[in-house]
């Protein structure tokens, strides 16, 4: 069997295996969320200012919150399998519709963050390793240390102060200037303009991480025997760095990046709040306080599906990067 059909088989098998994993996550999330005190009715009643216990009972009945937990879970699972994520009473919308609406902003933010963090992290790490123990290396290390140690929200606020308020270079918040009704390319440009600050803020921490990892990984690979072999063949240092060492050094960075996509969704909550980015992170944050469990479960389901998918993509990338990894 050739390599590509092997990979297709592997991917389809992994996708099938992903289903029970996601269902297990759903069940776990369901019970975890129900551990918290109070439900959506409490919140709605509290916001309304006054509500009689009878009215609250009636609302619970209407939302299906009066049934015992296992029954609620069974109903929810049955709906999930039919791809129906339920109804958000808070937003008066289908959860699926709501999530998909908010999914694209988060996806845009995540993809640009990963590209920026991995791309620049690899470049900076490479640059530091090539200029080992010179002032360039030290500069990169200091930069990495500072960004690594600075809290996300603070960076975000400082960026807004510096680039939006003091210098009016970038917008302070939102994803697009909806008042302008841009179409086509103009709209893309507008979104990109809004994207700059949140992406930089979210990626700085990861950028620092990958820079340090890439540098260490390069140095480790420089010490390997095959580098001496290459030198003994008379291969130039340039080619040793970019052909021999670089590809081997990338492997751990790719692994790490794959693992951290999940953490990125968590990190995006802060950034989305700071920049009022209309993404999933913010939605999750709001629905948590509104006890909008249906919506929250839907977001978690989507995130876990995303993590499963990203892990699969990383594994496939990995077996192209490293021929020693066999798919079977």
């Amino acid at each position: 069997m050739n390599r590509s059909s092997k990979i297709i088989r592997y991917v389809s098998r992994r996708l099938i295996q992903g289903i029970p994993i996601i269902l297990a996550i759903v069940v776990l999330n369901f019970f975890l969320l129900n551990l918290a005190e109070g439900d959506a009715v409490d919140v709605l009643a509290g916001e309304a200012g006054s509500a009689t216990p009878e009215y609250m009972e009636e609302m619970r009945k209407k939302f299906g919150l009066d049934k015992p937990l296992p029954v609620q879970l069974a109903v929810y699972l049955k709906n999930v399998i039919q791809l129906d994520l339920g109804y958000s009473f808070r937003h008066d919308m289908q959860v699926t519709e709501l999530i998909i609406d908010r999914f694209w902003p988060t996806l845009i933010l995540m993809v640009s963050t990963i590209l920026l963090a991995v791309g620049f992290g690899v470049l900076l790490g490479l640059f530091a390793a090539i200029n080992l123990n010179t002032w360039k290396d030290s500069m990169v290390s200091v930069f990495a240390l500072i960004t690594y140690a600075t809290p996300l929200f603070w960076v975000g606020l400082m960026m807004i102060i510096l680039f939006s308020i003091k210098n009016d270079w970038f917008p302070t918040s939102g994803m697009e200037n909806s008042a302008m009704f841009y179409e086509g390319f103009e709209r893309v440009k507008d979104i990109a303009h809004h994207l700059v600050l949140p992406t930089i803020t979210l990626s700085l921490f990861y950028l620092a991480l990958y820079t340090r990892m890439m540098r260490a990984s390069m140095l480790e690979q420089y010490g390997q025997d095959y580098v001496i072999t290459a030198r003994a063949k008379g291969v130039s240092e340039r080619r040793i760095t970019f052909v021999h060492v670089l590809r081997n050094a990338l492997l751990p960075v790719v692994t790490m990046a794959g693992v951290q996509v999940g953490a990125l969704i968590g990190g995006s909550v802060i950034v989305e709040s700071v920049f009022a980015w209309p993404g999933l992170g913010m939605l999750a944050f709001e629905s948590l306080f509104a006890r909008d469990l249906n919506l929250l479960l839907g977001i978690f389901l989507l995130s876990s599906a995303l993590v499963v998918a990203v892990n699969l993509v990383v594994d496939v990338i990995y077996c192209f990067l490293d021929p020693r990894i066999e798919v079977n």
Partner: protein
Amino acid sequence: MTDKLLQISKLDIALPEGSERDLAVEDLNIELSPGETLCIVGESGSGKSLTARALMGLLPAPHVRVKKGTITFCGEDLTQAAEPRMRQIRGSEISMIFQEPMTALNPVMTIGGQIDEVFRYHAEMSQSERRKRAIELLEDVQLPDPKQIMAAYPHELSGGQRQRAMIAMALALEPKILIADEPTTALDVTTQAQILKLISEMQAVHKSGVLFITHDFGVVADIADRVVVMQYGRVVETGTVDKVLNKPKHPYTKALIASVPSLIPRAPRPRSEQIVLSGDKIQKTFGGGKSFFGLGKPNRFVHAVKDVTLDLRSGETLGVVGESGSGKSTLARCIIRLLDSDSGNIMLDNIDIRALNRAEMRPFRTKIQMVFQDPFASLNPRIKVGQIISQGPIIQGESRQNAEARARELLEIVGLDERAFNRYPHEFSGGQRQRIGIARALALDPEILVADEPVSALDVSIQAQILELLDEIRESMNLSMLFITHDLRVAAQVCDRLAVMRYGEIVETGATGEIFKSPQHSYTRDLLAAVPGQKWDRKIAG
């Protein structure tokens, strides 16, 4: 002068400050003529590998560097050559092969790609020409199906095949000098014989000078024209192979040669008929499990130990010999119950210890103990030597005081100072650590000692000392020993009986003398024929 390919004179190589000694190599003088094979022999730390690196201009600068002296290659002083010129020379006029063919090849680059680089940097050839030439080279080094190997990655080849590919790469541009740094040390004895043959064939065709670095006198005897013996960075003796090996002058050379175990088995000892341990039809397989949710193909299945039956008599040493992957280590681990075998019986004191669970096994652990191969990896670096030795008895219920007193005693028995008790393993040399490992095994007063390649990581002079120590201990404590080794020279000197393993099976058992004199199985014959330095042995024996 002009007919010499290479002339190293008065070469000093400096080590970084704070090292054990100032100079890695001191006042080195070496000459090499075309078509000649010069062996540099020495133990670890003698500076032989750094000499080779210096020649290639590949010293780990700036810490280690040439301090003074000249390396004249075809009239040009390489110590003065600029880096671009050195790069031109490397791979085309002087090339090198290394000890570990797995790590010496880039794991994510095809063999073809790695050979191609040599041409790309040194010759003006079109891509198709380069490819054609690379395939020819792979044919020359007798690799099967060169076209397929071109596209293969290093991990898809066996150790011997990888080393052949390395040789193809090194010989690509017919270098004037080939430096081989322990090229066969990591290989099995039969593969080693093939590689050595290949190198000498290639040398005959290309008339290159070969600088062969090794610690193995058997190999030296087989391939060298001239020999240089190094110790602590200095040359202690140079001469033709005949002179150095058969009439050594320097006491160090004499001592080294004396510690090479002879291939002629020692006289058989009286043997007891009492069986202390017997294994019957031991089976061990690895893998074969189902994957996640039972989907997909089952995993790879390896039959590591196949129907092995053996017995160990009181006071004897039974050697299990075989090449890597023959299952000898797995067998040892099954017997000592570090691994659970799949089926069969392991009888110790009339009890089948294979069937015992962890708790039931514990009292039997004192009877059978193990000495491991790697003295660096097998001792916990965070625990003091005294604790390492006394831990076993304490677990078995001995009081701390008694156990520690016994540990001190044992340190003395294995030839270490009592002060070793409060030190950490890293403070000791390889040979000393192996002594600690032996003391640890002896702490429980075992009846049976299982030694898994206990000397293969050690230099030949240290090896001789450890073997002697094991012998003494066996005599004084009346131990029975299961001795696992790949080295037939060691087996000849240590074992009373031998069991030859291949692919998980014992193909032949018998008294050591008998097996060496008239091996029955064809594999045993191949193994014996492949041991380097046999002619030399016979010469010494007269």
